[in-house]
């Protein structure tokens, strides 16, 4: 075998090794985070961690239900605000905007995706929080679910909008023409044919937005208040729920990990395990939906 043949073989194995690295990293992430959390799971008990409502490291109370509630509440708020805007934006870009307008809006959406999360957090602290503080409800600090939901809605907008736009654009042109030729208006065509046909991709985009929302950390810490309490309405008006302070799973980890030791540190890794599990489930379901869609398209 000549030298260059040997080199060819060697390179192949080197490249193979780098391809395998991704697998190793995923496994290592799961392994290390889980390993560090074992102490908490065994010492405190799974039920105590998952369903305990009190997080007070000083007295060794490590229930993360409040953080789960916090993460889900702020994600819900962000979806409520962000999804209509993102879908509207996607429909606008894919079906309505003239080329010249698209050339302005699309880069704007891209840039929104690129702005660092701390910049959004800072904007929230300086602009949104003082505005929200003006709402006259006792106990309203301005920091809380509302500010966090608004910030998060803007952060997930580009994710959802760009995936949904792709899904809409992927709808075959002959559906569009078929509908228009039957005397449907453009808007009827969009709502009755195009959106149903692109449904899977759009839903997958929303789910990936949920994944992004659950994982967001720094901007949340900056505007949500970080009290490790179950979010609840501040007055008899249920809407004041969104003025409540809260803490997210991500925030719980980031705020305390740098000084935590022992069982406290382990409980933070347990928080990480829960977050990791949630994200894996969310992303896997998005992937599953996209895959079934591809399968259906092939069947056609």
């Amino acid at each position, binding site marked *: 075998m000549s030298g260059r043949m040997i080199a060819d073989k060697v390179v192949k194995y080197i490249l193979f090794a780098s391809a395998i690295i991704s697998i190793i990293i995923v496994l290592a992430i799961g392994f290390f985070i889980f390993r560090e959390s074992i102490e908490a799971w065994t010492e405190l008990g799974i039920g105590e961690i998952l369903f305990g409502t009190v997080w007070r490291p000083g007295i060794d109370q490590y229930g993360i239900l409040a953080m789960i509630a916090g993460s889900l509440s702020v994600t819900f708020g962000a979806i409520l605000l962000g999804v209509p805007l993102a879908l509207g934006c996607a429909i606008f870009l894919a079906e309505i905007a003239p080329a010249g307008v698209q050339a302005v809006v699309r880069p704007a959406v891209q840039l929104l995706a690129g702005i660092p999360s701390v910049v959004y957090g800072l904007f929230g602290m300086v602009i949104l929080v003082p505005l929200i503080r003006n709402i006259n409800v006792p106990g309203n600090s301005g920091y809380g679910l509302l500010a966090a939901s608004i910030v998060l809605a803007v952060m997930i907008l580009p994710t959802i909008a760009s995936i949904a736009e792709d899904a809409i654009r992927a709808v075959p042109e002959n559906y569009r023409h078929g509908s228009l030729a*039957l005397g*449907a208006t453009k808007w009827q065509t969009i709502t009755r044919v195009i959106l149903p046909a692109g449904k899977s991709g759009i839903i997958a985009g929303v789910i990936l937005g949920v994944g992004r929302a659950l994982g967001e950390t720094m901007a949340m810490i900056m505007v949500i208040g970080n009290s490790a309490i179950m979010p609840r309405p501040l007055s008899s008006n249920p809407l004041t729920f969104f003025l409540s302070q809260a803490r997210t799973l991500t925030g719980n980890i980031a705020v305390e990990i740098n000084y935590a030791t022992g069982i406290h540190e382990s409980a933070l890794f347990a928080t990480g395990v829960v977050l990791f599990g949630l994200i894996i489930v969310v992303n896997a379901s998005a992937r599953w939906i996209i895959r079934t869609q591809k399968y259906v398209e092939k069947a056609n």
Partner: protein
Amino acid sequence: MKDTKLETINYSLYYGKFRALKDISIKIPKNKVTALIGPSGCGKSTFLRSFNRMNDLIPGVHTEGSVLIDGEDIFKVDPVALRQNVGMVFQKPNPFPKSIFENIAYGPRVTGLKDHHKLEEIVERSLRSAALWDEVKDNLGKSGLDLSGGQQQRMCIARALAVEPTVILMDEPAASLDPIATLKIEDLIHELSANYTIVIVTHNMQQAGRVADFTAFFLTDESRTGQLVEFNETKTIFTNPRDRRTEDYITGRFG
């Protein structure tokens, strides 16, 4: 020719700077089948799409001259209203990813009909007119995509009929079908011509000879611009064409 349904006068169409159709004047008679024939790329499909303004959807298209339906300028009619009156069947069957029932009911629904009983009536009548009812009446909930190609195309014809148009445009409706399915479509066209004005683009001269009452022959000039060479009753075109180029084409000397 007593009753003209569609008419173009000195009609030209441009894709940007490129002139795809030049100075076409034609009178298409009511409740007859008119075939548009000619070699591929001669602009006959583009011309067909002029009658329901589907060319409007292509960026950069503009036109000169006029197109009339029942004597009225179609560019003064709302395109959506125009398309409710002028139905279209595409070259490749394009059912929506919905049930057979919903495919047929789509047009009536978007044009405002909500009464389910009425919709059922229309679906049945349209499918009967398209000679598909007996094949699908027990499976109306089945996806339109599960039908065979020929069935899909007849469903698309039924779908167009359900809107109650007066004109039906067909862009090589049998191009992707096998001979038996093609024959069924041709029979159908023949039957429909009693109540509808049908304009059909076809590659296949035998097909034009079989289904069309009138035939228009298109050809491109040296700058690839489509022109109308000759328009007459089908039998005249086939037996006694006035233009030398028509004769060359139908006797198979080129194209």
